[in-house]
């Protein structure tokens, strides 16, 4: 009986700490090198694929809580940055036409079996472990929550007005290091 209880506790722990993890795959799909004016460049493409049957919403955050989707949602949507929280902006249907930090309002949906691509421009081939560092950055910063979970807090239909439109985004490698 005690063992069964411990196994159940372990399973609950696993399901809490890995919410959504198994549903989203990170894959390095391509490395392209080229040179302009004797300057070497590499474009690294990392793809995330939604392998689940649910639509996922993801964003980038400096404060990722690996144990709780609720905490991540509260931190990203309900914590005020400047005069507003992201939730206030969404709920008031405020048009965002000024550039903001990617940690403020980047939000993207990814439907089942669809993918999204991060393209990172690495300026110098000699950069140490840039592939690993990039993957680490993305895994540390990306928060993805399924639509059922997020709809408890945010109206999905209204949120959709703020989705990043393209299926890929570009970063300079150096900017990831800050």
């Amino acid at each position, binding site marked *: 009986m005690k063992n069964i209880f411990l196994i159940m506790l372990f399973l609950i722990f696993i399901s809490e700490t890995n919410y959504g993890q198994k549903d989203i795959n990170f894959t390095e799909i391509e490395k392209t090198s080229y040179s302009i004016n004797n300057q070497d460049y590499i474009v690294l493409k990392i793809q995330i694929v939604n392998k689940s049957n649910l639509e996922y919403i993801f964003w980038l955050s400096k404060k990722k809580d690996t144990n709780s989707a609720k*905490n991540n949602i*509260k*931190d990203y949507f*309900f*914590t*005020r*940055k*400047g*005069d*507003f*929280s992201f*939730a*206030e*902006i969404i*709920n*008031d*249907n*405020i048009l*965002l036409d*000024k*550039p*903001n930090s990617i940690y*403020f309002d980047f939000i993207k949906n990814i439907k089942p079996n669809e993918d999204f691509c991060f393209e990172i421009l690495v300026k110098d081939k000699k950069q140490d472990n840039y592939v690993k560092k990039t993957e680490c950055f993305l895994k540390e910063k990306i928060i993805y929550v399924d639509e059922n979970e997020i709809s*408890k*807090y*945010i*109206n999905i*239909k*209204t949120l959709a*007005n703020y989705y990043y439109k393209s299926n890929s985004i570009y970063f300079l490698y150096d900017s990831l290091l800050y």
Partner: protein
Amino acid sequence: MHTKEQKTGCNTCDAAGIKLRKTAGSITTDYVGNFIYEDNLLKYIITDYGKINLSYPKNGDTVFTRQYNLTDHLGNVRVTFDVHNNNMADVVQEDSYYPFGMTMNGLDYRTRDIDKKNLYLYNGKELQEDFGLEWYDYGARFYDAQLGRWHVPDPLAEQAYGWTPYRYAFNNPIKYIDPNGLYETVKPTSEDALEMIKNTLTEEDAKHIQLDSKGNIDKDAINSHESESGNFNNLKEMVNSDYIVKVSTDNQFDYVDGDGNAGNANMSYCDYDPKFPTEKDPNGETMGGTTTGESGFLGKTLFPDRNGMQNSPDGTIKVIVNKNLSKAAKAEIYSHEGNGHALMYVRTGGDREAASHQVTTGWKEHNITLKNMIITSKKETIINMKSRN
């Protein structure tokens, strides 16, 4: 009792302009609430969905026929139908309107059965067909949809001295309605909403907030009291304005989008979480925070124009505050929505941009006037709520 004598007949009305009796030629119609009598015989009963027609066959029976209306966002009745015994709808009447309410004859349809005729049409008001005038009875005044004007001046014309007192709906009948021919007021839709509004005020000022017979905040009562309180004077300004401001507490709301499509949105609620201490705003320094630290979708103001993603569905300004909030937070969020967004919309004569947040880089508020209105009102509410404890 006030009687409006007209060349064409005689209407007897009460002091509020509610019609009690109409005499046109040899026919006398009595209006007893929702029960309408013609020559002392009950003719029909007005219901929320249309009306119930009564007919009296020669065998002595009384036959009741339910009649249903389909209306648009302004309350204009577009289709009237009744239901056969086989549960099939039978269209009795179809009406189309020019913006100011004149019917488009070419697009109309009328059944031949004159007893089924529906005269409650533009804005749901009764068309007075007697003597061929075709005026609509709005209560306080009669409206001529063919001219797009009232035939008598606005009884509260001094509230909009820049406008002709004969105008209808500020010459913008797609954006506004004028439900009773008078200037309108603030309407709390529940006891909870009324208490929330009172909680923004001092206990002394709150004594002068009461409802009239229609459930609106009583103008005479609020106007009889003078106060230096910003929140009290904000409320007074809205009560005396030309807008209806409906105030409710709820966890969802209906809206129409910019294309006129209906929608519904839920309002989430989260208790205070000590992991997020910055959510607490003890002194009212922020626009969106609360002293209690509660978070979620706390409040919403819907404007009656159609220029936003979510707009009021019924031509009024709607203020909705999340019903799950504590009393203190409700009053603070009402200060934001009511004394910020709604008041600014009223004050600027319907300028949505001036009444909305404008976010600039770093998510700073660019609409400083609105920000100051909200924060000033919130601070006063916090003080008034503390004085009650």
